[in-house]
């Protein structure tokens, strides 16, 4: 019973924290641009406003367009339930491993890409085509990075990987882990639509990837999609934080350990948010056809991670 309470609390926490994380990244970027910026909780206001607005749907759009936001949100939320944000020993740990998380996120991407095509707008088609290109090329990196982690942990289950690194702290600094971290970090930038792959702040349709697909969405549908996007960002941050630097994750279901886990999660998210904000200030967006080069760099990193894990055994 208690473990289920933790499970629910964790899911609620992740869902609730996600918009705030996007707000923090935006606020940090504003500060780095010498602006005062909106407060970190601004995305909550935006979501509330969008849920209260009217929806305008294209005449050419089918039922798929109206179904897609729910599928996108549900599959991202389902993935969120599988990621160990606070505790390791969880009833849901066995339901899905890291691969399931990746495939659930791919399901969300596919539905968003289909919804981009549905109204027949050229922008939507463009965004959809680009998003699937990036997703397809990011896939092997993710799989190989998972493979590298599984090689040292002996499992692709998230709880198992975390527990294994907790038990053997030296593993966190092994070259296999470090290379897999670097590879997944690049993939995280690509998958969650950050610079240098996609610019979350762009207003120019021709440079868009994610934004171009959702140009048609408004009101509550847009709110669901934006929330899901924020959740995806948080999931990647939490995976990077908890899989590679697992200290702080609660092993036992005690209030003290959980409080520590919450604090460490917030610190990890903040650190990664700062890194991402600094990076987004420093680098320019890559041309679309340079993105595959970046992704092949991450692929090679993941390949090296697997190789070094094999050699280190």
């Amino acid at each position: 019973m208690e473990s289920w309470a933790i499970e629910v609390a964790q899911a609620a926490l992740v869902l609730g924290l996600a918009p705030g994380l996007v707000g923090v990244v935006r606020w940090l970027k504003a500060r780095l641009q010498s602006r005062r910026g909106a407060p970190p909780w601004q995305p909550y206001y935006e979501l509330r406003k969008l849920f209260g607005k009217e929806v305008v749907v294209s005449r050419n759009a089918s039922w798929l367009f109206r179904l897609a936001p729910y599928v996108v949100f549900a599959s991202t939320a389902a993935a969120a339930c599988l990621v160990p944000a606070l505790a390791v020993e969880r009833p849901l740990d066995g339901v899905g491993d890291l691969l399931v998380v990746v495939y659930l996120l791919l399901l969300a991407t596919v539905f968003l890409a289909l919804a981009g095509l549905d109204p027949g707008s050229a922008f939507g088609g463009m965004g959809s085509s680009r998003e699937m290109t990036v997703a397809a090329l990011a896939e092997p990196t993710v799989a190989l990075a998972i493979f590298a982690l599984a090689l040292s942990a002996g499992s692709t289950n998230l709880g198992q990987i975390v527990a294994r690194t907790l038990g053997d702290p030296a593993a966190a600094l092994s070259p296999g882990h470090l290379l897999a971290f670097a590879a997944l970090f690049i993939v995280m930038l690509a998958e969650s639509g950050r610079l240098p792959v996609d610019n979350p702040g762009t207003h120019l349709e021709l440079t868009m990837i994610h934004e171009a697909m959702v140009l048609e969405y408004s009101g509550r549908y847009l709110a669901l999609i934006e929330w899901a996007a924020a959740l995806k960002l948080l999931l990647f941050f939490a995976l990077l934080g908890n899989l590679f630097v697992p200290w702080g994750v609660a092993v036992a279901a005690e209030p003290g350990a959980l409080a520590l886990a919450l604090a460490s999660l917030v610190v990890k998210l903040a650190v990664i948010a700062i890194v991402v904000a600094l990076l987004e200030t420093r680098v320019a967006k890559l041309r679309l056809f340079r993105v595959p080069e970046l992704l092949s760099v991450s692929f090679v990193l993941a390949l090296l991670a697997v190789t070094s894990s094999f050699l280190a055994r």
Partner: protein
Amino acid sequence: MTAETAPLLCLLMVAAYLAGAAGALAPLGPRLTRIVAAAGAIGGAVAGTVLATVVLVGGRPLVVTVPALLSVGGGLALRLDGLGAFFLILVGVVAAPAALYGVGYTAAYQGRYSLRWLGAMLNLFLLTMSLVVLADNALTFLLTWEAMSLTSYFLVMTEHERADTVAAGSWYLAMTHVGLALILTAFVLLIPPDGGASFAELRGAAATASPALRGLVFVLAVLGFGGKAGLVPLHVWLPRAHPAAPSHVSALMSGVMVKLGVYGILRLALDLLGVGPAWWGALLIGLGAASALIGVLYALMEDDLKRLLAYSTVENVGLVFIGVGAGLLFVSLREPAAAVLALAAALYHAVNHGVFKGLLFLGAGSVAHATGSRDMNRLGGLIRTLPWTAACFLVGALSIGGLPPFNGFVSEWLLFQSLLPAIGSTAPLVAPVMTLAVGALALTAGLAAAAFVKAFGITFLALPRSAEAGAAHEAPLTMRLAMVILAVLCALLGLGAALILPVLGGIVAGHAGLPRLAPPLTAGPLLLPPGGAASMSPSLVAIGLLLAMGGAWLAVRLLAARGLRVGETWGCGRLGQTPRMEYTSTAYAEPLRRVFAELYRPTEDLAIEVHPESRYFVQSIAYRSEIVPWFERYLYAPLVGRIAAWAARARVIQSGSAHAYLAYLVVALLALLAISLAWSG
């Protein structure tokens, strides 16, 4: 039903197919011909499926021998064990909906092509496919195999008036007979000099054969059966022949017949040859990975819906072979638990692919039936006019894209997990092979998702790109029903994975040094691969997805504003939207065409016509882009050219005189007698 009914069921299956074939040829009205042909096929498919289930549940193989028939090769011998039963179920599960679909689909053929011939060939095709997996000696196997090839060739040739159909048929006929020659050689090499050719005797002969001979037989089998399965580089006939056939036949060829190539390799390598060296598995993994990648890369570039599906068959067969290869590798490394998992994953993907590819081909058939076109650049917007087809095709596309909670996701997950036990192994070959396999598997999965977003999105969404697509109509009831059955199967095979996987484990257990009892692969609703601690439950993931969706819908319904207004698509305020503004199939694949330009070597040709007064007034723009067909151009074209040259030289001995030909016969006969005397003496 007890095991005693098995022979009766077998008889019933053969009788139903034969009755269907005979009934189709009988002088009935066209409508009745269609129904009779389908009834025979469905009856045979159901009987076959029940027979296979009885054998699987009873655990006792069915044995039927008719020594009087085919007495030269040891008589007609049939035996159905677990492995055969699995493939017999695959035949039945796809054949019944496909035959049902054919009732409505072939109505359009009335008066153009022979419905009688089509119905009879369909039944014979299904019968021979069922008998291939029942064959228990070399001669029975080879004869049914060849009969299967020939009947499917006639089915491919149904729309014989089209030039590309004839070309496709010729490719198919040539490739399948090269394959037959290789398989024949493999069997002949295995037959002991003083023994018969029953599978039991072959098994015994293989156990004592030299490693070199076993290796040669294996390679010949891989080339022969791999050609049928569509392994790169023997796949070139497949994207030609499968789309040329009527759609329900395409579904059977892509969904089922290619799997019999897999069956052939499993029967030979796992059953007859037994434990082999590690390079067997590595070879299959390499070929599988190459097929998966090349198949999906060409599928992505395809604008013809059915050709896209055919290339994706090459891809999925590659995935199955990665699993089979991993299984053989683990068998030779003496890791039975991992081997059982890998082989079970391969079988799971084989049946899944049969179901969703069958479904997708039937969906593509409905599209062609409704619009008369398979070119995606002329389709679009069909989700409104063909709602049933669209929903079913979407299920198929999600399944083949490996997305939860459908069946493709489960088998791809299992394939990934079956590559992981390589961790424990210290054999030198394993590390690079497995890393390659994981990378190829993942890239394939991502690209397949992109290809099927394109296939579904361009065909069914947005505005119709041509008048025919705009005037489309939904398919008749029989066609819709067939698609719904297969779509439901896609969901059930995904959700019921925890019930299905142990059965598959039981099928592969006992072969080639594997333990008689498969290790436990599941625990309650969880799939639990042995060794690794990873686990997954597709049914619970599906429940979670549905709960999250329902929760989100309810919360939005209760808390959010309800207003909804229908307006125009936003296009930056342009005056109107036309289908010309939409992304096309070619445009959708353009980024990936550029990324993989080294492989595709796209040639682009842009012709702009301008008004004579000013070059700023463009009158028409024509854009053509083609990609290099590597295998056809650099492998097959020189080969075919060489053969044609030799054939021209051999024409010298063709005088046209009957006396000369008789003389050749006598010389050849004498030469053969001399050789056989020298051999035995």
